[in-house]
């Protein structure tokens, strides 16, 4: 009993070093198709990691597990210290506030302007109006959209919408930023701009995990690259590159 507790304490202290800690994680869909098999992945605080793979490799499932949109069938998942295998439904919002999330399709609230979209994340975090008035403009300045705070999403170009999404993801100062194909809908110029922003964010201390199948982007950045193929991690390389076999 004491031995088990000691091991758990050791494991816990170990886990706290990581923003993401996945151990033997498997997920099978209800139709019996395996999505992920025995995934082991550890991402330390402050790292910048690419997760790459072709369509259907399991990248999106992995993101959903990290967001606790899905629950794994087996294994252990710790994100920012939260045990996602045992977390109660009522605690999930608190966990998600430690994350910033960016999607390929931006997922902005279409009926609210740029300011309100970013302020919304602050309102959810129960920030006061004074804090919101202070934090939102500075975050919009960081992503280069201070002058467009009144614009509605549909009045913005794709790159600008993604910047808004980034500002919203970062305004609550998350420990971890998950970006799912953040440049998938952007041209080369905007892709480079967004990646520059992500690097800056990472340099400021936020762990950044980018899921993508953009090989050029990955190869240019020279960061850690985790490759998933058919639901399994097939390589995990520092300063790695992306070789699309298909």
């Amino acid at each position, binding site marked *: 009993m004491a031995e088990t507790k000691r091991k758990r304490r050791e494991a816990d202290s170990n886990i706290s070093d990581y923003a993401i800690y996945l151990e033997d994680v498997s997920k099978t869909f209800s139709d019996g198709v395996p999505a992920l098999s025995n995934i082991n992945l550890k991402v330390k605080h402050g790292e910048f990691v690419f997760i790459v793979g072709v369509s259907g490799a399991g990248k999106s499932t992995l993101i959903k597990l990290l967001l606790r949109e899905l629950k794994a069938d087996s294994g252990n998942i710790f994100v920012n210290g939260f045990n996602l295998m045992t977390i109660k439904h*009522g605690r999930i*919002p608190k966990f*998600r506030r430690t994350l910033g*999330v960016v999607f390929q399709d931006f997922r902005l*609230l279409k009926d609210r302007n740029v300011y309100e979209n970013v302020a919304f*994340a602050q*309102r959810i975090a129960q920030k*006061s109006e004074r804090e919101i008035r202070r934090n939102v403009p500075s975050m919009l300045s960081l992503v280069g959209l201070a002058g467009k705070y009144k614009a509605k999403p549909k009045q913005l170009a794709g790159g600008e919408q993604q910047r808004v999404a980034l500002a919203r993801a970062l305004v*609550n100062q998350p420990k971890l930023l998950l970006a799912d194909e953040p440049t998938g809908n952007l041209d080369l110029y905007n892709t480079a701009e967004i990646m520059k922003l992500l690097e800056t964010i990472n340099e400021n201390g936020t762990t950044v995990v980018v899921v993508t199948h953009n090989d050029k982007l990955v190869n240019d950045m020279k960061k850690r690259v985790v490759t998933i193929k058919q639901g399994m991690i097939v390589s995990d390389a520092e300063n790695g590159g992306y070789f699309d076999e298909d």
Partner: protein
Amino acid sequence: MKIRTFFYTIEQGVIGVFKNKWFTVATVATISACLFVFGIFYAIAFNVANIVRNAEQNVSVTVFFDEGISEERIEEIGEIIGRRSEVARYELITAEEAWEKFSEQLGEYAQGFTENPLENCANYQIYLSDVTMQSQLVNYLEGVEGIRKINKSDFTADTLSGINMVLVYVFVGIIVILFAVSIFLINNTVTMGISVRKEEITIMKYIGATDFFVRAPFVFEAMLIGLIGAAIPMGLLYYLYELATDFISEKFAFLSFLTFVPAWDIFIYLIPFSLCIGVGIGFVGSFFTVRKHLRV
């Protein structure tokens, strides 16, 4: 709930009503149409029940006394009758009053009588609070000392109580069906309106909103729409009811039995009931629909 969350909920709920115009219009129209039809049947049922009740109150039982009965005993019998729960009111018709009334019908033929031929026809006219209790009262009165004869109309009493029962079943049936259809239609509209905003709910959940924070503005919005949807038909019905009853009373004045319940007597129950239905359906419909989309 923090004060700013409360105000945020109210603000977003009100904004939602105007932001999703088509959803608001469709839901308000559905709720209004359902409650309007429901209100019409309720008002008709209330009035028909009132007409039957009035007819029942005119059904009387007549009690005649033994010959040579003392005035004290007649008074005692009156007190006995007055204590009965089946009795709404009763009145003594003396022999003189009975003859006076009858001679009016006889006209000039009445002049041939030198004495009151209805000397032994003093009686109590008893009006019932419930016609179905007529035979129970008659059975009791037959055993009372000093009563010679009891006149009653079994046909009228049975017919009215039969009509009353049929009306109760018919109207309760119609109102229950209308009510169920209303809930189904309104709930469907609320469900559709919220389902198209699934993406909005999903985004909120990804950012870390609690179920309450996501749900509260939607629920408040649906309750507000329910309230508006219920208030419109009530206002309209109140106005139309007064218009219709005035018109019918004027055009069909010869139908003396056609008396209408004052609008306020009906709407004092119908208005709060309908408003509660509107708000309640808004609450229940949105609460469960949003819950379906909260599992993100």
